[in-house]
């Protein structure tokens, strides 16, 4: 394979084959295609490269500053009628706004959603890889993957590259046999199940709003309003969040896209009559 030749991987795996008994080195057709079909349990980083070191040099004051802050606000909460997922749409590159209409929710399949915060490239790549894995699971096993298993797959991918400078904070939301599911997965390999999460640098603003308005037995409209308010108030105070509120509702029969409201209009509506 071309990549093997280029990255000098081949000799290493040959050495490994000599050390380990022959049977164990065959890892073809296992759910670890994210290791790029290496014959052994290697991680697909070319030898001699140190991504985290490179990234550290980029973050220093003197040189180029690639600020991998989690410049966004995303929130998701579980309630009786499913899972609400709400995200903003601002993509920033340092102080420059790269996009005011970025899509931070990846539709893995009709009953699984993933949110993205952190480095946009990392999120998109790994969540698309997760989508591929979920599809393969469905084809191999005949039934859908559970939310817990999908989040575990993503978490293991992150653990494989731990310390190498990935930046991703994601929430995997879905509805499976156990009911609505919500997991938070992190670039450190953290994986939490919970009722409510918010990620990104605007998350603290969103937490305040959603904590005070959250009830497990809310109606659907109330839940939509809470999600909208959470993102709107966060974008109002946080410089790195803005744009529109993209909101999804995960129901038993799949997700629906609820709205795409501009936050400036929303904040004017909420703040009417103030000062």
């Amino acid at each position, binding site marked *: 394979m071309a990549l093997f030749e280029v990255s000098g991987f081949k000799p290493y795996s040959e050495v490994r084959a000599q050390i380990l008994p022959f049977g164990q080195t065959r890892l073809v057709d296992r759910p670890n295609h994210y290791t790029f079909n290496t014959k052994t349990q290697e991680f697909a980083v070319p030898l001699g490269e140190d991504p985290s070191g490179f990234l550290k040099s980029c973050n220093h004051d003197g040189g180029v500053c690639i600020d991998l802050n989690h410049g966004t606000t995303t929130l998701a909460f579980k309630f009786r009628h499913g899972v609400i997922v709400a995200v903003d749409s601002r993509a920033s590159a340092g102080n420059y706004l790269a996009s005011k209409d970025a899509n931070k929710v990846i539709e893995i399949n009709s009953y699984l959603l993933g949110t993205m915060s952190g480095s946009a490239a990392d999120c998109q790549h790994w969540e698309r890889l997760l989508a591929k894995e979920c599809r393969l699971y469905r084809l191999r096993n005949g039934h859908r993957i559970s939310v817990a298993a999908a989040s575990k797959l993503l978490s293991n991918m992150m653990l494989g590259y731990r310390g190498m400078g990935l930046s991703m904070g994601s929430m995997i939301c879905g509805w499976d046999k156990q009911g609505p599911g919500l997991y938070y997965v992190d670039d450190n390999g953290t994986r939490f199940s919970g009722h409510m999460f918010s990620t990104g640098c605007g998350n603290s603003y969103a*937490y*305040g*709003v959603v904590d*005070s308005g959250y*009830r497990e037995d809310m109606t659907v409209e109330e839940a939509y309003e809470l999600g909208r308010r959470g993102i709107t108030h966060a974008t109002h105070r946080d410089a790195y969040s803005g744009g529109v509120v993209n909101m999804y509702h995960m129901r038993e029969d799949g997700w629906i896209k609820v709205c795409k409201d501009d936050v400036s209009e929303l904040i004017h509506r909420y703040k009417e009559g103030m000062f």
Partner: protein
Amino acid sequence: MALQDLCNFGDIFQESVGTARNVTATGKRKSCSYATGVALSNSTSLFHFYIPEVGYLDESPIQFGQISTMQSSSGIPSPETLPIPFSLPERIPFTSSQAVPLPFPMAHGTTTLAFMFQGGVLAAADTRSSCSGLVACPASQKILPIHSHLVGTTSGTSADCALWKRILSRELRLYQLRYGRRLSTRGAAKLLSHMLHPFKGTELCVAATLCGWDGGEPDDECRDHGGSETDHGESRETTKAHLEKTAGAPGEKVSVSKTQSSSFTKQQCSRRKISFSGPSLFYVCSDGTRLEGSLFSVGSGSPYAYSILDQGVRWGLTVEEATSIAREAVYRATHRDAYSGNFVDVYHVTSKGWTRRTREDLKEEYYREKERRRLERERRGTALSG
């Protein structure tokens, strides 16, 4: 004192007091008057290093007592004294002291907030003092009254805040005695900001919001034009007395000063019409920020509080509504932020002065809320099923 002995402070201080006297004589008197004035009278005070010379900002005050005698005795780092430290690093960066480093970049482990509304100014804060992971005091006071109509919330280093609040109170009291009226909140904010300026770049950390009510004082006769005769009479007399004093020969000038005083008061009237009376809110920070606003929240718990306040605060709130929003905001912040917690203090500043609500335990609030939610859920359950 043990610390003084440990760092040979006594010897160093004696030498530098001599130089301090010289320095203050030359200039920059105003900004170090509080500092060196105190130092010279009280030899155990550590204030003398506040001499704002140019080279000062290169030296970290945390080096104080640890540097060699030559360097500190000069007070002013002169070129000859610089090549001393073989034993010292060239430059100790201010962020890396020997103290325990901050656990997270955002400092000010607290939640304080203040906002203006039609009923005055409301200030609320939690009461947890933390010391990098340890709760040093669960019942500290983060809102300190400065005078009868001015209250300040504190955030940052507790010791710094407490000290600077007291210095500010002293200065405001002196102003009041000298000029016969209270300094406005705007003036107090400016004063505090200028007092903190020499320490910019050091490890001093004070982030305060000053909440006050300006004006409305009895000798301010232009406050209401339909004012009583006694008010007018009083003020005219004081201005007359003032003019008499300055006129020099009082006997001759009495009649003149009488007419002069009436026109003078009219002038004062027109001048004073511009002055402001009402609630006032300023944010002052030791890095030099000084902002006027109608809503502030400071501290690590501030983002959580901001979103609650943004939702609810408006000018037309009643006092009860405002208090409940402030309490809710602090409660939510303490719920999510590890460095805020325990109790909540609420202070309300009106034209009559500040009042304080009894301190409330937020643990109780948490259980009360859980109970409330449970009851609501039951009520909803029965409503749906019934």
